[in-house]
């Protein structure tokens, strides 16, 4: 690391007792204000340590160390190009699909190395679902969209109809589509399509749902519905969400990681890095880093 660049994650490391190596996930969490209840010191789902991501020789993200807790909503925020989408795609190995993408450092998932030898990305993705920025329903019926995941996994549920219904109910879409399950998913509105994509992800009972700016293509009403939905889903799933919308992060997430990008001295390539990771109310009310404060108060980005 070039001299003069401050790596905040390391700075934090020094504050925490020896060899924790991570920003502590939860040690002493006071009761949350305003009805959120107490966030329990939860189990770690993802443990990232000194993660660097390259696209070819380009370093997109460097030195990310953080833990993501179970049944929490973790928001990744930051300006464009800060690597937050890159990071989320590492968590279910979608980056494998980009030629030249490479991950260094360790990403542990329930204690197992996600990039370890013999790990099958297909198996990873069967546990860690993903919802994309732009709703991407398959050009099939609503029913077939939801049934697709279970089918490719070879699941034989007692009743596929029931599984489809349950998934659609969980995604708060059932009432709107129950009479037209055989219609093309492409006939739905954008917000409905996105909830369908969530239903589709839920149908395979994943452990984690990754959401890469799930509301950026939606109107405020649809966005509100999805946010409500996330609040409910968090009881059963661990959710990681990338968002450009700081209000959204503040509204829905338990923890927020703020990333930014810095130009490398020589090349000018912009590399993303984690600035600060903390409970969401902390990030938005008492950020410990000036850059975070500038960002969340709207002075930058």
């Amino acid at each position, binding site marked *: 690391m070039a001299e003069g660049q401050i790596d905040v994650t390391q700075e934090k490391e020094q504050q925490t007792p020896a060899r924790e190596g991570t920003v502590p996930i939860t040690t002493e969490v006071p009761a949350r204000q305003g009805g959120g209840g107490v966030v329990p010191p939860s189990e770690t789902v993802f443990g990232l340590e000194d993660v660097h991501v390259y696209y070819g020789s380009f370093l997109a993200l460097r030195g990310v160390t953080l833990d993501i807790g179970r049944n929490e909503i973790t928001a990744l925020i930051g300006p464009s190009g800060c690597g937050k989408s890159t990071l989320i795609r590492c968590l279910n190995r979608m980056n494998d699909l980009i030629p030249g993408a490479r991950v260094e450092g360790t990403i542990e998932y329930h204690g197992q190395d996600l990039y370890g030898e013999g790990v099958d990305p*297909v198996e990873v993705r069967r546990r860690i679902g993903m919802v994309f920025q732009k709703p*991407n329903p398959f050009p*099939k019926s609503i029913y077939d969209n939801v049934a697709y995941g279970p089918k490719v996994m070879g699941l034989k549920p007692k009743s596929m109809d029931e599984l489809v219904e349950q998934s659609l109910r969980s995604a708060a879409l059932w009432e709107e589509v129950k009479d037209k399950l055989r219609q093309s998913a492409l006939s739905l509105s954008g917000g409905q399509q996105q909830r369908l994509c969530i239903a589709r992800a839920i149908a*395979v009972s994943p452990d984690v749902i990754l959401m890469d700016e799930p509301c950026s293509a939606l109107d405020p009403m649809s966005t509100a519905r999805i946010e409500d939905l996330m609040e409910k889903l968090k009881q059963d799933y661990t959710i990681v969400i990338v968002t450009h919308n700081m209000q959204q992060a503040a509204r829905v997430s338990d923890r927020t990681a703020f990333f930014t990008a810095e130009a490398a001295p020589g090349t000018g390539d912009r590399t993303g890095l984690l600035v600060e990771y903390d409970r969401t109310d902390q990030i938005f009310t008492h950020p410990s880093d000036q850059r975070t404060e500038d960002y969340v108060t709207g002075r930058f980005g």
Partner: protein
Amino acid sequence: MSASTEVFAPGALQRGATRTPAKVALDAAFAVLLFVGTIVGVIALGVLLFTIYDNGWERLMADPGAFLSNYVSRLPARAGIKAGLYGSIYLMLLTALFCFPVGVGAAIYLEEFAPKNRVTDFVEANIANLAGVPSVVYGLLGLGVFVRFFALGPSLLAGSLTLAVMSLPVIIVAARESIRAVPQSVRLGAYALGATRWQAVWTQVLPAAIPGTLTGAILALSRAIGETAPLLVVGLPVVIFNLPNSLDDPVSALPLLIFNWTSRPQASFAEAAAAASIVLLALLLAMNAVAIFLRNRFSIRW
């Protein structure tokens, strides 16, 4: 100078205020030119249809049943197109059977699986080249490879394989275009649900690409069914008095029959050729109609 006052000057919005009459005329002339370009093709088709109709309609309608169900004859009045019509249909079906799976398979490989390297580039460039090879050359290939080397003789199998090889590049190109038109987000969606690469291609990409591929394939086949040269070179007969019972049997084709009849001196054979052309055209137009129907009915609006 103040534009805002000029706008409100009398006549500021009249034609010719800023555009000179010459420019206005040029715009109009250009539109006419484009229209003429469009109409040339339509006129050509109209003239063609009229000529064939004029020459052949009477002959066809004199006794359509006999014309369609008689074999060839020395006597123009008794000559029919049964061998050619059925032969063309058999050839087309077999050609489709051979070239569709191979063409789609090649397209899937090139689009979804092939590594991006020079070998792939080389293959791609040559498929484009193949699409431009004259059909008579495919006839020579068919003669050399299928008729002689594999000793299939001038048979249904040799003829349809030759036409299949000829249609292959066009189908590959059409299938690749359709596969490429499937948004990447669909593939990512499948992968994110734990689909393997094969599952993503087989259950998402291919079904979405099929309508476009079929349209292209039918157009390729309708070109194949009208081809005379390769079948002549392969040596398919015209004078034949039974339909093929197996792949090894000789078979005739409508274009061969038309070609044969037009080269005879009697005027009544020319009429028969025109009548056969009407049937061939009807077949082609029907295939194109199916292609258009498939495109409109099943193509996906993303």
